């Protein structure tokens, strides 16, 4: 493999990884607070692309405004899911909440299949993403260049929110100990709603950027990215925001690099992530940044 193709693949891996990172943070925020795998998160990711798609296609809005509206709608969907489906089960057995999450996810996917159909639609990309750049002699597509930059900018805003604002402090406190935080006078329900809004907005941004990279969108497009992003959250240490980001980049790079080095294994690229998950659960189940918590009676 020449240096330029390696560099291209590296950039490619970074850009896919940054998308997994965006998506993984939504999973890890919710899991950290509620201990719930939000299966519907991957469908919010899918909805983001469709919201933007219809804003552009039907209301003929400019690309950036459509995307912003789409992301806003995603946050709204996330909050609605929490309010309608998860909150009534907050004190129910864990397995009930998980089943509900699977149900919501399947509901959105099938509603999508029924309303917009299974046939993939072409997602319109802005000119910026179609440009081609030459960096260090390597031919880099605009998408590959801009997606990680935008993602990293978004992640920086997120880190600021989580680690430097009162809301972020409340979120971290709730994930450490919900009851004590409630006693400190924090409105826990509202913090959870904000966490869902934040995570879903990130999923929406991730979805739109994903659609710029792979411009065929369909109602089931969220399943694999969502599952890999959750794997990324596990690899990074579930519940940890920085860990989710690191995990996302690891999964993205590993996936792209394995396919780059062994091109005849392309069909199995999803299986590698599974293998990685199993290995991580065997060797370091708490993840890279995770701390091992001993359950006490």
């Amino acid at each position, binding site marked *: 493999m020449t240096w330029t193709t390696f560099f291209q693949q590296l950039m490619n891996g970074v850009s896919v990884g940054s998308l997994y990172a965006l998506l993984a943070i939504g999973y890890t925020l919710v899991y950290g607070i509620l*201990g719930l*795998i939000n299966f519907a998160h991957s469908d919010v990711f899918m909805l983001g692309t469709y919201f933007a798609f219809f804003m552009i296609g039907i209301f003929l809005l400019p690309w950036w405004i459509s995307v912003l509206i789409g992301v806003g709608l995603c946050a709204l969907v996330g909050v609605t899911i929490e309010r309608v*489906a998860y909150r*009534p*089960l907050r004190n*129910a*057995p*864990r*397995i*009930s909440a*998980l*089943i*509900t999450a*699977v*149900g*919501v996810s*399947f*509901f959105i996917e*099938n*509603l999508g*299949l*029924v309303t917009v159909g299974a046939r993939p639609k072409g997602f319109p990309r802005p000119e910026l993403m179609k440009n081609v750049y030459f960096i260090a002699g390597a031919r880099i597509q605009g998408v590959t260049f801009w997606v990680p930059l935008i993602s990293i900018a978004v992640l920086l805003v997120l880190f600021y929110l989580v680690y430097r604002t009162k809301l972020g402090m409340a979120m971290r406190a709730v994930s450490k100990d919900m009851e004590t935080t409630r006693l400190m006078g924090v409105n826990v329900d509202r913090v959870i709603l904000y966490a869902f809004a934040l995570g879903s907005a990130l999923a929406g941004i991730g979805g739109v950027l994903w659609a710029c990279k792979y411009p065929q969108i369909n109602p089931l497009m969220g*399943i*694999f990215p969502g*599952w890999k992003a*959750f*794997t990324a959250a*596990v690899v990074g240490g*579930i519940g940890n925001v920085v860990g989710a980001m690191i995990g996302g980049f690891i999964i993205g790079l590993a996936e792209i690099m394995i396919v780059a080095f062994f091109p005849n294994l392309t*069909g*199995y690229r*999803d*299986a590698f*992530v*599974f293998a990685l*998950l*199993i290995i991580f*659960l*065997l060797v370091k*189940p708490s993840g890279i940044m995770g701390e091992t918590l001993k*359950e*006490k*009676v």
Partner: protein
Amino acid sequence: MFTRETRELLFTFVLFVLLMVGVWLAQRYLNAYLVRIFNTACIYVIAAVAYNLVNGITGQFSLGPNGFMAIGGYTVALLMLPVVQKQEVYFLQPLIWPFNSFSFPPALFIFALLLGGLLAAGGAILIGFPTLRLRGDYLAIATFGFGEIIIVLANNLIPLTNGALGIKGIPEYTNLWWTVNWAFWTVFLVKNLVNSSFGRALKAIREDEVAAEAMGINLFRHKLLAFALSAFFAGVAGGLFVTLISTISPTLFTFSMTFNLLIIIVLGGLGSITGSTITAVLFAFLQELLREVEAPHVIGSWTFPGIPGMRMVVFSAILVILMIFYRRGLFGRQELSWQHVSRILWWGKRAHGGQS
């Protein structure tokens, strides 16, 4: 006259005989469509009861039955498909050795099913080993991934699975004798297992892992055994299914299959074996009825074209609503036991009589 155990065993035996007579009558007089639904119902019973053993009894959240059913299905398909047929089906790439050179005679069908189940159990141990040692929901995410990965593998391992085209012309060995017997013995075995000390240990794990461990229950071993056993029956159900519809392709055992089973066990009551049995049969018929939803309808001046896929929308909405408002399902954790039945039959007069 008899002890309770003997009497209940006798009841069970009578039920078995009645079922067999029913099968004999159904094979002779029932139309093919109904027989097909009953066959599907029995396969759902096997898979749902096995699934409930993990999700309902042990309280571990697995999303893998579709993967295990696929393993069982492909195993049975590869073993039972006649060699001549294999050469016809695998025209893209020839089938790899040793499957291309032999196939089981019909008499060995049972061994193909058992092998399919065992391989599925092997897959379960592969996923269960890393995930069941840990607390939390790693099993859910690993099994979900496994189910999707099996489909990826089925699409890509063309010399073994014939890829997306699938395998056609599998001999239709499955009939009501097979499905009813397997369903009966699965329910019988799992129900007895649940009532054994092993089953009580599983329930203890469901209620409180820390307390169960403190009582000396080896969490990992119990969970793994329950998970593998569940996968075994799922594999058998998959094998029966492909020899019923005589074809298998990667789209046959998608996540929808797991989802159907999830609805069955939730509706029947998580943790109720008899509940799952009854709802599995109901579900097979409900699924046929709901085909109506997907057929074209005329309401006023509007003609709604048939909406394929509407069933799954309805099912998932039902699942979420059930979880929020009616979490215990039809049976909760109760079992329909012979005591209940006799209480209903004799209007409570002899409900607890004759226990000496």
